[in-house]
């Protein structure tokens, strides 16, 4: 009794995917993973060049006699869209910058931009870039104060027109103002802005504002005193000097 041949087997080999298709899928997968790994591992360095008063290695904007000067070293980790940073700035910001400009302390602003992600905009990055543009024009301190003084609801963000207005308020005009506008439009310091965030990551700072005086991180209790009472600054600086 000869059994009839099984035609289905033939059908399977003809109906299955050709080797080229399987090969194509495998190649696609390898390329996909490769491209993703490449995209994920690029960047993340600290070697970007910043504006005129920035420290190397994404170390932030230094105001005052310098990081090597024999005065109290104050580092502030902040994000231009962080409401509590605004509270701190509006409370003790003027005093701190006055002390720095008088050479009594050195003040370093580590400007982070991580809030862009949670707020779904790019205002932290753009404001940080604009502040560096202002630094190039020598008006970092008044510009920095203007950003926080005009902060809206969290998530509202900032426009380029606001940046230009604050640069004007700080005294820029004519060619200087045009250079500032170009710097804002070109996002000139984007790499350094990212380096500042990367440096904050490496410093293990996950919240803003964080204030470090001579290497000691100011605790929550002292931070809330600083935000509520401008008069608390001297004693807190004294306690950590």
């Amino acid at each position, binding site marked *: 009794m000869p059994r009839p041949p099984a035609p289905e087997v033939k059908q399977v080999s003809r109906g299955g995917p050709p080797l080229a298709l399987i090969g194509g899928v495998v190649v696609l997968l390898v390329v996909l993973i490769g491209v993703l790994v490449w995209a994920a591992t690029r960047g993340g360095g600290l070697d970007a060049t910043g504006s005129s008063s920035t420290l190397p290695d994404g170390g932030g904007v230094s105001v005052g006699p310098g990081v090597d000067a024999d005065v109290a070293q104050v580092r502030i980790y902040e994000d231009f869209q962080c409401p509590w940073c605004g509270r701190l700035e509006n409370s003790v910001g003027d005093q701190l910058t006055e002390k720095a400009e008088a050479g009594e302390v050195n003040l370093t602003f580590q400007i982070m931009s991580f809030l862009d992600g*949670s707020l779904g905009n790019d205002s932290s990055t753009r404001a940080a870039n604009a502040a560096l543009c202002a630094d190039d024009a020598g008006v970092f301190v008044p510009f920095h104060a203007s950003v926080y003084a005009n902060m809206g609801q969290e998530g509202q963000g900032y426009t380029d027109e606001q940046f230009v207005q604050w640069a004007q308020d700080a005294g820029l005009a004519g060619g200087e103002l045009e250079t500032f506008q170009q710097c804002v439009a070109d996002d000139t310091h984007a790499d350094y802005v990212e380096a500042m965030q990367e440096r904050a990551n490496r410093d293990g700072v996950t919240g803003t504002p964080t204030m470090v005086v001579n290497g000691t991180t100011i605790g929550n209790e002292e931070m809330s005193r600083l935000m509520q009472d401008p008069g608390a600054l001297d004693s807190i600086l004294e306690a950590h000097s």
Partner: protein
Amino acid sequence: MSTPGAGEGPAGGAGPSTVTASGTAYPGARGRPAWPGVVGLVARLVLGGVLVVAGTIKIVDITGSVQSVLAYQLFSYDVARFVGTMLPVVEIAAGLLLVTGLLTRAAAVAGSLLMAVFIVGIVSAWARGLTIDCGCFGTGGPVDPEDTRYLSEILRDVGLLALGAWLVVRPRTPLSLDALLTKGR
């Protein structure tokens, strides 16, 4: 091929004779709505789409991605850098596989594991009272206490985990590359 509930109509095996032109492997697809197939397709597109979007937001801002891993205060910088870098790679790869329906079960396992890890992370942050935004979509980071949305984020991830689990159990879905590749088998 583990198809729990095989024999209950649409979920049956896929013999060559039941393969339709669109590549769907559901015998009940003709005439009657093959609802498990539709559920699987929706699960694939939703979970896959969410993973691709979440991964893309992270991969264009790796520094921010690393920051949001650090914000959980569970890892040192080096570990956080590795996690923050590789997380979007895994998310996008698993997401694209799910959307196209290629290696559906493996991709669904990866997607479900990611969701389980996210849920554990958020619960741990909540338990420790960290005022943290979950880094599931792009950058998390500390936020004002009143802005933390632990519960809604956990519920969202539980929902996505359920979609992933469905696909692990029933990886055969209509309009998938898997169906195209196994056509006639």
